[in-house]
């Protein structure tokens, strides 16, 4: 089971954190909540994946869908803090070419220009 935590839900940006395994089961358990706290708000989004221990392609698809939805409203999305194997998987799928990956929250704020 994966979990989604809302870290910050202010007027300038959304900040959520994912926890656990984002395999088929994990994605099913958070996808609706994730979209509700990010895409539906139409604000720049910080997605902390520091505590994601496994990220399958279905999870990457979920990230791309939300990022595309935000982009339609001129809002960006940034991934923060992936573990080394999770980041390697993201780069293998070339997700980093369309969704920035950074190490820390302050870097994410800079990329999103909401600092």
């Amino acid at each position, binding site marked *: 089971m994966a979990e989604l935590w809302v870290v910050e839900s202010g007027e300038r940006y959304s900040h959520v954190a994912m926890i656990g*395994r984002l*395999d*088929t*089961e994990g994605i099913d358990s958070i996808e609706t909540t994730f979209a509700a706290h990010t895409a539906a708000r139409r604000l720049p989004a910080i997605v902390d994946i520091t505590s994601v221990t*496994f*990220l*399958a*392609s*279905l999870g*990457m*698809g*979920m990230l*791309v*869908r939300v*990022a*595309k939805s935000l*982009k339609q409203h001129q809002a960006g999305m940034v991934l923060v803090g992936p573990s*080394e*194997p*999770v980041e*390697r*998987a993201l780069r*293998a*799928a*070339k*997700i980093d*070419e*369309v*969704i920035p990956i950074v190490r820390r929250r302050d870097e994410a704020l800079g990329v999103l220009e909401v600092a």
Partner: protein
Amino acid sequence: MRAQLSDGLREVRRLNESVARFLQDHQVPADRLHDVQLVLEELITNAARHGGLEAGRARIVVEIGLEADGVRLGVEDDGREFDPMSTALPALGTTLEDRPSGGHGLRIVRRLVTGTTYRRLPAGRNRIEAIVPLAGPPSHSPSSSSR
């Protein structure tokens, strides 16, 4: 180790828990364990989605062995003929707007494994074999197919 799945995607997590125990017992590094689990997840997802496997009736057999150069995987299923290593990958596009939300799985598999072979077995089954290297960054290497 050898495992058989009859309910496709619903059993992948249980399979991957067994795989973790097996590879940890053999001192496989955590990052390579992650890669093995990811490749298995993607291959089984593809077999279920593109092979038309029916939950509860499909038969997927997974074999895992340790070799000098890495972890050897064998995945066999009774779905429609589908070679995940020669199938064309969807175009990525140059912008987020152009990027498809699906099709990442095969790209990941091709980047993480080496020495891939695909065979369509006489019994009407697909069999793919691949190695997840134990050392160094994996890079794509030529695959071979036979029927």
